[in-house]
């Protein structure tokens, strides 16, 4: 069982937690400037590519996908999953401290539950080891 993660692997998990939610916020902000896209206004999608908020959002989402894929190469899916849910906490806290929105009690409870989920999996091993399966897979994959 592998318990300890390298510092670089913690960095990857932190990028997963932040990139998707911040990327989504940038995309949302950019698309609000671009306007509603529908089938008769598909040209706006091309226009959206020249919006800096949309561009930063796309770069962040590509970064999310790359770090998520990297994490899955050394950790279980059920270990990485709570990190992706943490994005909801990031969004809610950004709204609270950046946009000064009021958070209801139920949202605070939701935030603490997601934080608990991260703590639950972080206390256990990051990877289920299957010596015989991994050997078979290594022969196929490399």
């Amino acid at each position, binding site marked *: 069982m592998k318990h300890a993660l*390298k510092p*670089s*692997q913690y960095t990857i998990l932190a990028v997963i937690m932040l990139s998707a939610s911040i990327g989504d916020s940038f995309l949302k902000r950019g698309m609000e400037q671009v306007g509603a896209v529908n089938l008769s206004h598909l040209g706006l999608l091309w226009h959206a590519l020249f919006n800096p908020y949309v561009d930063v959002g796309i770069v962040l989402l590509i970064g999310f*996908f790359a770090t*998520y*894929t*990297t994490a*899955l*190469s*050394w950790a*279980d*899916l*059920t*270990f990485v*999953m*709570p990190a992706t*849910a943490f994005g*909801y*906490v990031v*969004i*809610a806290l950004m709204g609270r401290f950046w946009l000064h929105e009021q958070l209801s009690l*139920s*949202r605070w*409870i*939701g*935030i*603490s*539950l*997601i934080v*608990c*989920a*991260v703590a*639950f*999996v972080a*206390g*256990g*091993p990051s990877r*289920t080891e*299957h010596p015989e*399966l*991994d050997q078979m*897979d*290594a022969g*196929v*994959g*490399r």
Partner: protein
Amino acid sequence: MMTPAEMHVWSVILFVAVLAVAGEVMIASGMRQLGDLDDIRANRGLGGAIGAVLANGRFVLGALCMALNFFSMLFALSIANLSLAGPAIAALTYVGNAVAAKFFLHERVDRRRWLATMCMVVGVVLVAR
């Protein structure tokens, strides 16, 4: 009983979640097959690591599912309220991922991870409402 319109919304939500689970499990399976990307990058450089990922069939299939998931999500959001579809899709995806990780990826989903999954489901529903 659900009205036909509600049935339609929920079947689209279910479809989006199933695509997400299929995509994530395929990608996880492909990455497990490939091994630690940091090691591959140390040996073959960043280009080599990207090449190895893109040459993995399961990863490509999974990425395709995720792309389909993205577009079907846009469709779902056009027929359902964001505050319903967003958390519903996320919650179904978490439960589906945990079950699929146990049976297809043979991950040891112990009590700790089930508890985490339940916390995420309830947490996301409460936060995103």
